[in-house]
């Protein structure tokens, strides 16, 4: 089973382009799998073809919502410890609370400002892929 760096779940092509460009420009991730909706993300995870080191998850997604995807990730023994960072437009407090309750590791609101946006994505990538020490995969 191979490993990828990031599973990026994002339906907006413009946000997707901005995020990918930032990650690549900063040499944070080489292997990125992009899912354009919740169903695609779940299908990828359930196929077991590769385990992501980090999931960047938007909440407002077609077909299956981000919260549902998060729930499935935490229920799957293979991915229950995988860091999941919510990257979305809203900063509604109940929404934030729900995400943490379901096991999200971090919640970041996408800034509108280009510079702030790229900085936010860069910091998230650096922290979770370079600084953070994950537990050993597959352990209970």
């Amino acid at each position, binding site marked *: 089973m191979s490993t990828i760096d990031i599973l990026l779940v994002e339906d907006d092509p413009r*946000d997707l382009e901005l995020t990918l460009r930032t990650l690549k420009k900063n040499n944070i991730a080489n292997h990125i799998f992009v899912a354009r909706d919740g169903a695609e993300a779940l299908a990828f995870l359930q196929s077991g073809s590769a385990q992501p080191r980090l999931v960047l998850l938007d909440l407002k997604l077609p077909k299956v919502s981000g919260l549902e995807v998060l729930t499935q990730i935490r229920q799957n023994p293979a991915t229950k410890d995988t860091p999941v960072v919510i990257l979305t437009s809203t900063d509604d407090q109940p929404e934030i609370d729900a995400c943490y309750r379901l096991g999200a590791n971090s919640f970041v609101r996408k800034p509108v400002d280009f510079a702030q946006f790229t900085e936010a994505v860069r910091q998230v990538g650096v922290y979770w892929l370079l600084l953070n020490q994950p537990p050993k995969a597959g352990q209970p």
Partner: protein
Amino acid sequence: MEPRPTGSRRRIVAIAALGALITLGTVAVVYTQECKANQLRVEKIAAQLTHQSHERIERARLALDLLVAFFRCSDEVTTAEFDQFVAHILQSDFCVSWIAWRPAEIDRGPVMGRPEHQTAAMRTAMQELPPLAGTDHTAEVRGRGPETILLLRQNVFSLGTENGRPQGEALIAIDTSAALSQTLDEAGTHGLQLVLRAVGNAASPTPIQVHPAPAAIRATDQTPDMLAIVAPDRFEFGGRSFEVFCNLPSGNLDASTPLTWLALVIGTLATWWVTRGFSSMQRRHQYAEHLVAERTQQLAEANHALELRVAERTAELEQAHRELESFSFSVSHDLRAPLRAIDGFAGMLEEDHGAALDADAQRLLGVIRSSSRDMSGLIDSLLRLSRLGRHALQPTQVNVHTMVTSILAELRAATPDLRAEVELGNLGMVHADATLLREVFRNLIGNALKFSSKTTAPKVSIRRCDTDDTPSFAVQDNGAGFDPAFANKLFTPFQRLHRADEFEGSGIGLALCQRIVAMHGGHIEAHGQPGMGATFQFHLGALARPHS
């Protein structure tokens, strides 16, 4: 009208029965009293009559005694002497109407000096008496003449000389006229009859007669079929005993009872009136109850309808609220995404191809990017304003001094080139929602710093200025100020008094402040002059008063 319930009918019957009972009781008492009064009256009259009769008979007996004495004094009484004696008796107050003398032996001839029709009656009366033994004589009668008289007979043998030689027998008529007649008339109205009765020895000749015999007086030597004997009295006359009393042949002492009839009529009328009044009151009461029940029913229906409407409106409101929340989410998510793309792609263009663009193209890109950032700010402000409406007030004791110090530190960190001199008064404690109060101070202090930033010696003062019991605060600066004519517009959302290139801002901060202060039951006011600085003063109102 509704049929009268059984209970009510029973009450009316009870009242009528009670009235009848009271009436009958009253009538009985009045009747008893009246009977007693009647009896007393009759007894009084009877006693008077008996007494008067007795008195007259007593006087007549005196006259008889005198007559007996007169005959004893003379061996042979002449007619002239007898006439003289009788004249003397009649002139005196002996109640004697006339006196007849029947000589024992001598026929004296007709009565002298009297009209024949008068003397005839006297003679008849005399002759009705049993004759003297072995004699047949006419009588000498002297007197005023009869009206109603009592004839009293002296024992024949009592009229004699001192040595016992008989001279005849005499008859004395008692005058019953004048006062006695009047009493007799009165007694007659009550059905009373005066009775004179000889007691014992019924076989001997009747010693007393009434002449002529009127219904009001009765003389007898037998026991009559009496109904009631009233005021009996006894007397002696000529050696015999007599009873005088009143008889009440009808026995009706209850004859006169007008008060009883009056009581009966008044009682019946009163009972009828009270029963009728109560019945009418009952009807009114029932009608009132009926009305109340009807109104209560109507009220209940109206209430029910109102409740339904309230529920309907509540549902509508809840729906509107859900739509507003959904709108807020859309604003937050859907409006920001395209803005991010605008700024992001402009940014990429600037980064990747900036070198290929001339200065004007770069300026144009800059305008695009700053506009998108402005709009982002506006959207955030709008969100904050709309979320405020859903914020439930959570008041706690807040140390305002600590809060303001912390806000100043934040603002200094965000704007390192801050030159303003900040003066802090003693701000103390206040009872308020800490998050919201922080928003107010952050906006007001931020504004004060912003609008004084272009002044040569910027100065901001934050102080407490309670009025009465109301916690109040003032934030003052010496900056750009404003035209007081537009003071009211300051608190309208998105309303700005300065151009965006002078002082940036969304125009939402003061609107937020006003809403928060209003949520605490207070108000905010602004004072200022162009170029002379501004003072914002807010009063927190009743909600923020310190607990005593």
